[in-house]
């Protein structure tokens, strides 16, 4: 399906598609009206590709993009029409201004999410007509800006340029989305708590995507002006934003190619129907309602899902299926637990001398309720510390203090000499503290391999430029990450299913993948929140042997768990909490013998509180 294998093959494929489209324009020579419409399609597609980055990939509901579209169009339009600049420098000025403006705007918006974000960003497009009013002498106010020159001789040539830019944009963003940044952005959209626990700063990534997609909107705007030689505030009003939303949702918001499909739809469909101008909004709205109820992932997203159901996750898979000539779902890969065989390394990836994680006199109060009282412990490299106690004992709160989700009322958490209190969750993750969550939280359509790879985000380093251009370095890092992910999956016993989506896995395997994802950070310390809950005995064994290997390689493990036999078997030291206080600490034998522990678990009057029986809670 691609011309040759690997990245170069992909580049050639995109170039070939662009070449074919451009040649088709040259051969067919559409009339001037069709040429104009097609250029409009290409420009809208560029806009949608950018919008899909923030709306579909990162899952942020923003309505501000018609504003940056308009601002890009106006800046470039005024510079070319009034000051007679060339299009290219005008476009660059437009893009840079929009990038700066959107950076500023994103910085303001970064604390908002969900509806508040949607509505606050909604305010921006409403100001565009007023802004053009204020700058009437340049922009023409409500009457619009006329006389935007075509930079090349004919509309057909301009159409070819637009197609080239569109395919180029598709290639760049597709590369970006496939790699580390795309994974991080998707994760931020699904679950920003988990993203931050893996060392990805959701706020930073959201700002980056926002600036990226607003800049692309500015490119699209600057290219839009010359098509009709005219722009007006209502080219970029709420109806324009609505058509963008429709195109995005119908085409497939989570995909880049969906932007091209969506653009074809929102530009061409109203053209085909008569009485276009007055019915456009109604048509858009009805299409949107129908698609939301029938194909919520849009055309491209649904196509990807259907292909996945038949085991096709890459273009080369499609080729295999075509050769085989039967379309059948892949057989379920047998879950083979590879035991201790693969040579996968869990050793902490961070350099420097080995340090201990110290929790020193931590107190947490929620209002008047003391949740954690004066807790102290030290976790050294290779230590395996268990934290048990009845429900409501404060285990999870303490856990959250260590990983940074809860700010303690007093006390400190240190890593060696480094004070962690006051550091954000991603900062702590970058210092080598990994955690898992009680619930499995499968992240949307992430495959097992992607789930692990996103865990390795902080190590799989390469820049945005490298990612976009698919440079050798980013390619090498990606293949290393993929190989490492496969080994890790092997070591938790789901090696055969690397390209399957984690959401399709049985519960136990999902939990094990979660542990593997945290391990992919190559952490100094691994904090596990009830990893054995809900696992069957075989899975508990797999988890146990995995953790034993992990700590042997020098990773300190802190385990919160209700499965007491599991804790007794694996931990070399155990802390028992009750009502926020430490009531016992020591090796498993001394914990079993402790009267305070028996009282906390079984009550003082319970006959089993006599010290002869074993605790099996």
């Amino acid at each position, binding site marked *: 399906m691609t011309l040759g294998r690997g990245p170069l093959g992909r580049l050639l494929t995109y170039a070939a598609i662009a070449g074919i489209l451009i040649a088709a324009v040259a051969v067919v020579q559409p009339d001037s009206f069709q040429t104009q419409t097609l250029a409009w399609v290409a420009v809208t597609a560029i806009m949608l590709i950018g919008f899909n980055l923030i709306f*579909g990939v990162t*899952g942020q*509901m923003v309505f501000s993009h018609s504003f940056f579209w308009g601002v890009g169009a106006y800046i470039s339009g005024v510079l070319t029409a009034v000051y007679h600049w060339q299009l290219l420098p005008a476009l660059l000025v437009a893009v840079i201004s929009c990038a700066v403006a959107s950076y500023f705007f994103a910085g*303001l*918006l*970064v*604390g*908002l999410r*969900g*509806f*508040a974000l*949607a*509505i*606050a960003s*909604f*305010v921006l497009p*409403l*100001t565009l007509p*007023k802004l053009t*009013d*204020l700058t009437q002498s340049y922009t023409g106010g409500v009457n619009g800006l006329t006389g935007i020159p075509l930079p090349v001789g004919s509309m057909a040539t301009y159409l070819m340029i637009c197609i080239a830019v569109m395919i180029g944009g598709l290639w760049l963003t597709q590369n970006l989305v496939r790699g580390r940044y795309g994974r991080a952005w998707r994760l931020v*959209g*699904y679950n920003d708590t988990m993203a931050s626990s893996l060392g990805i700063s959701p706020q930073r990534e959201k700002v980056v995507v926002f600036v990226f997609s607003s800049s692309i909107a500015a490119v699209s705007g600057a290219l839009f002006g010359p098509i009709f030689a005219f722009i007006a505030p209502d080219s970029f009003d*709420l109806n324009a934003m*609505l058509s963008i*939303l429709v195109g995005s*949702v119908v085409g497939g*918001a*989570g995909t880049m190619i969906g932007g091209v499909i969506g653009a074809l739809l929102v530009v061409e469909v109203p053209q085909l129907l008569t009485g276009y101008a007055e*019915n456009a*909004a*109604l048509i*858009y*709205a*009805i299409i*949107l*309602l129908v698609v*939301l*109820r029938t194909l*919520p*992932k849009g055309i491209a*997203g649904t196509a990807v899902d259907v292909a996945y159901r038949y085991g096709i996750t890459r273009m080369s898979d499609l080729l295999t299926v075509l050769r085989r000539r039967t379309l059948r779902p892949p057989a379920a890969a047998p879950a083979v637990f590879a035991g201790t065989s693969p040579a996968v390394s869990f050793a902490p990836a961070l350099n420097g001398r080995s340090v201990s994680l110290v929790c020193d*006199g931590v107190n947490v109060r929620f209002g008047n309720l003391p949740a954690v009282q004066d807790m102290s412990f030290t976790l050294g490299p290779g230590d395996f510390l268990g934290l048990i106690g009845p429900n409501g004992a404060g285990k999870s709160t303490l856990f959250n203090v260590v990983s940074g989700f809860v*700010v*303690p009322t*007093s*006390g*400190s958490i240190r890593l060696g000499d480094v*004070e962690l*209190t*006051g550091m954000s969750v991603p900062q702590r993750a970058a210092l080598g503290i990994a955690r898992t969550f009680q619930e499995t939280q499968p992240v*949307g*359509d992430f495959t097992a391999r992607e789930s692990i790879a996103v865990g390795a985000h902080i190590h799989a380093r390469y820049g945005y430029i490298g990612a976009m251009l698919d440079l050798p370095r980013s390619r090498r890092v990606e293949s290393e990450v993929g190989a490492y992910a496969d080994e890790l999956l092997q070591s938790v016993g789901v090696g055969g299913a690397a390209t399957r989506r984690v959401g399709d896995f049985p519960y136990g395997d999902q939990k094990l993948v979660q542990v593997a994802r945290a391990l992919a950070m190559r952490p100094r310390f691994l904090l596990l929140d009830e990893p054995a809950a809900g696992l069957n005995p075989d899975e508990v064994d797999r988890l146990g042997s995995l953790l034993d290997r992990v700590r042997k390689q020098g990773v300190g493990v802190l385990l919160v768990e209700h499965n007491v036999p599991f804790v007794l078997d694996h931990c070399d030291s155990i802390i028992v909490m009750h009502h926020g206080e430490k009531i016992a600490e020591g090796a498993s034998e001394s914990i079993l013998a402790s009267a305070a522990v028996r009282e906390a678990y079984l009550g003082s009057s319970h006959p089993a509180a006599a010290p002869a029986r074993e605790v099996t809670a």
Partner: protein
Amino acid sequence: MQTNLHLLVSSLVLASAYALVGIGYNLAYSTLRVINFAQGQIYMLGAFIFATVAGTGVPLFMAVLAGIGCGALLGIVIERFVITPIMRQGFSHGNTQAALLGTVAAGIVLTEMANRFWGSKELPAVALFGSGTVHIGSFTVGIDSLTVIGGAIVCMLAVWAILYRTPIGLQMRAVFADPQVTQLQGINFRTVTSVSFLVGGVITALAGILVSPLTSVTTSSGLQLSILGILATLVGGLGRMWGVVPAAVAIGLGQSFVSYYITNQYADLVVYAAIFIALVAPHWVRVAMARGSSFTMRRRAATAS
């Protein structure tokens, strides 16, 4: 002084519209955790149906009933046929987003259908209790303004009474507190949801009936009301039923006084900017406070060691 009092009355009239629409938003949000963006169109259609029916010469109360009935119907239709099915369907990133988009689309369908029916002409004003004036000291105020403000207060009291003095109100409040748990307690979630949307539709349509004679209402006013109502709701706190009232008053005051004293042309711009600041400010205050506390914490830790 006279001017200021007049501005005050006109801002309270605007605030009544925003507050009632905002309570409609909150009723919808509290059950399904979705913003019904077609709320403003219910306002607009309530006003149009009322004025059209009143124009045929039937008694006014019949026209009011028609307007209210339209609001109730639209509330339930949007819940049953747009929001709930889409939410069950799912979407790549959280189905509340998809449902919000669905209500945006529904709102546009309603606007466009109203356009086909009534065109772009302005709505004739039909005042409920005539258009006389009342003198309070030296101050003259129109009966129509008093009707709006009084009517809004009555509507809010009615919503309060439904929520706090009826069995279904108790169920509604339970659902607002925790939609998941109440379903396990044998409360019929679907009924409660529909009743919430119904009540929200009714008071939104009533807002349209009351306020439209005083402001120019066209078929495109729906979207504007949606936006200002939702801004008031967000500033007041989404899901905090009465928080929208002070926010609505603040926005109304801002619009009236800014457009009179500062700039008429850019009044909207100023108000949008103020609302935008009100929306983003709480986050930055929190950030600043968190920085302060972690700073003192680090200092405390330093002195301790």
